[in-house]
């Protein structure tokens, strides 16, 4: 977090879990997204839920894990009990190749060993001993090789297999999966060895519903083997830059496809034409593909489409009138295209839209008038556009808006009062240098805000006083240089804060750390480029939830922080200087 300059978070497409809710995943300003994704494993005490009484089952499972060496086999236990013990061992990281042996022939159903350290072919024998009971196995990130997969042949009821990042698996390994016709979900992300040859084995997986080959760079020509998989609903071939138009042809008959992700491939408008018949398609991700607005001809035939990602494509205003025909759309990403206000005219009728991304497009104030009727809009991304002072009035009526990103735009203090009535707003990004205390003063009615990004805005101590109105803030960034300890006094009572970035305010001293020592919910703190010294670190002791601490260019050394970490901040996993 926090370099010396104002920055934009790289917007990666993030379709996974889309159906959990449209808004929230599509907003750059949502800093807490980072909190959830940066650490794959939550610390134990947080996960366990403080205050909730552990069940006797759980207590027994914990106890068994502690003394796991006492047990040679669990095969006499009912399956649900041995499964719970297994899960607890994985969770607590007590499972080893040796202790795994106790689970031989336990008829376990689910072995979630994704990212588990040390998993290799030697584990496969016990894994396969679960036999026909075994339903799902996740070995992502393991050292399992082609020969390890032989063992799975007899686990004929397997429904779900995950081998993401298993770089030692190649075509030869896929051959062993050929007979697993009960598989509904299969995942081989980031594999550079799988080719069309190995994918012949997929042809027999007639029950497959979900196939994930993200970042498999050599699968060109292989999708022809999916032709008969009529139950396939979800196909992810993002970042497979070998995929071309001809690879789309075999997909044309997969009429049950609901989700198709081909971002960052070589597919062009003519490849998209093969998708016309996919009437059930609801999600299509074409981010970074060399497609133009001409592909809308084909897409307008898709009556169920509700999510369309065209970020970083080659769209211009030409042909954009066909957007008006895709009225089912709820999420539309058009960021980083050469489109202007002219294109926005054709979005007028898309009244189902809930999320619209126009990041870095050539749009301005005039164009926003076309959004006035999109009253279902919850999420609007206008970062790095020519939107300025006179455009915001067109947003005043969009009362369902929950998130707006206006970073790097031309908005002025005076125009911000147009946003004051948007009472549903939760996330607001005003990372723009010309915004000052005056602008913030106009927004005090937005008491529902949980995320406020004022990274580059010139907020001073007197402006900070307005922050008191935002009691629900979970993340706050003020890095414009104008804040001193006196301003931090207005932040110290924002007790919901989890992320606080006050870097680049070079006048902040140890007093700041003292002031915020009561913000015990903080998970991430950045006060880089300030006058903080190692003497001030003691004030951070109460921040037991802190997982990330950044104090670059301060009078603090890595050893100072390490000492604090070992004595007082057990959850701290990331810190700078390091």
């Amino acid at each position: 977090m926090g370099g010396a300059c104002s920055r934009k978070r790289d917007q990666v497409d993030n379709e996974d879990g889309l159906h959990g809710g449209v808004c929230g995943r599509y907003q750059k300003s949502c800093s807490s997204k980072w909190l959830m994704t940066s650490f794959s494993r939550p610390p134990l005490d947080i996960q366990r839920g403080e205050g909730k009484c552990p069940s006797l089952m759980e207590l027994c499972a914990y106890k068994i894990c502690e003394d796991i060496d006492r047990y040679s086999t669990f095969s006499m236990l009912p399956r649900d009990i041995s499964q719970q013990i297994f899960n607890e061992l994985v969770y607590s990281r007590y499972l080893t190749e040796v202790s795994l042996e106790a689970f031989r022939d336990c008829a376990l159903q689910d072995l979630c060993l994704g990212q588990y350290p040390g998993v290799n072919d030697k584990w496969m024998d016990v894994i396969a001993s679960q036999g026909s009971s075994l339903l799902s196995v996740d070995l992502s990130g393991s050292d399992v090789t082609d020969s390890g997969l032989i063992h799975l042949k007899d686990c004929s009821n397997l429904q779900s297999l995950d081998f993401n990042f298993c770089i030692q698996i190649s075509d030869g390994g896929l051959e062993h999966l050929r007979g697993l016709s009960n598989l509904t979900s299969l995942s081989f992300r980031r594999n550079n060895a799988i080719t069309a040859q190995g994918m012949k084995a997929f042809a027999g997986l007639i029950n497959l519903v979900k196939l994930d080959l993200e970042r498999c760079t050599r699968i060109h020509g292989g999708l022809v083997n999916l032709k008969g998989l009529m139950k396939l609903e979800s196909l992810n071939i993002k970042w497979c830059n070998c995929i071309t138009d001809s690879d789309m042809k075999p997909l044309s008959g997969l009429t049950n496809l609901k989700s198709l992700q081909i971002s960052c491939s070589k597919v062009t408008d003519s490849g998209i034409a093969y998708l016309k018949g996919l009437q059930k398609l609801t999600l299509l991700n074409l981010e970074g593909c060399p497609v133009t607005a001409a592909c809308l001809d084909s897409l307008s035939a898709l009556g169920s489409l509700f999510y369309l990602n065209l970020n970083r494509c080659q769209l211009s205003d030409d042909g954009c009138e066909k957007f008006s025909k895709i009225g089912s759309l709820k999420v539309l990403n058009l960021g980083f295209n050469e489109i202007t206000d002219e294109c926005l005219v054709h979005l007028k009728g898309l009244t189902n839209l809930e999320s619209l991304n126009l990041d870095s497009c050539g749009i301005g104030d005039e164009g926003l008038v076309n959004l006035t009727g999109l009253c279902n809009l919850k999420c609007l991304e206008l970062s790095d556009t020519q939107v300025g002072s006179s455009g915001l009035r067109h947003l005043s009526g969009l009362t369902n808006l929950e998130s707006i990103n206006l970073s790097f735009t031309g908005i002025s203090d005076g125009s911000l009062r147009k946003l004051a009535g948007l009472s549903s707003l939760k996330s607001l990004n005003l990372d723009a240098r010309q915004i000052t205390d005056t602008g913030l003063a106009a927004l005090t009615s937005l008491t529902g805000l949980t995320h406020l990004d004022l990274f580059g805005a010139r907020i001073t101590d007197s402006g900070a006083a307005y922050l008191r109105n935002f009691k629900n803030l979970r993340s706050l960034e003020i890095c414009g240089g104008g804040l001193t300890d006196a301003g931090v006094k207005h932040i110290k009572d924002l007790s919901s804060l989890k992320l606080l970035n006050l870097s680049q305010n070079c006048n902040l001293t140890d007093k700041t750390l003292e002031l915020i020592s009561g913000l015990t919910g903080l998970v991430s703190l950045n006060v880089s480029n300030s006058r903080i010294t190692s003497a001030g670190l003691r004030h951070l002791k109460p921040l037991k939830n802190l997982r990330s601490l950044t104090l670059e260019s301060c009078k603090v050394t890595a050893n100072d922080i390490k000492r604090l970490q070992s004595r007082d901040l057990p959850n701290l996993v990331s810190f700078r200087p390091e």
Partner: protein
Amino acid sequence: MKKEDTVKLISAEGFEFVISKEAAMVSQTIRNMLTSPGGFAETEHGEVTFPEISTTILEKICQYFYWSLQYSRGKETDFHIEPELTLELMMAANYLHT
């Protein structure tokens, strides 16, 4: 404590543990027996027999019930489990849904 506020749990060997209903109902299984209308004889007599649960285990379970009540009232102490009991205790806990 009034008799109607207690419940008698009987082990495989016939040992009887009289505990408060509130404690016993930490177990979802016992709660269902005691509260489901009309169904179980247990509801009327306030007695539940566990032919599959030994005395040692049932005693430990009763201790857990009371520990759990205290825990939920904010007294967060550790609950000690003897290593030699864990497997049998876990099976009983599974049955009792606790």
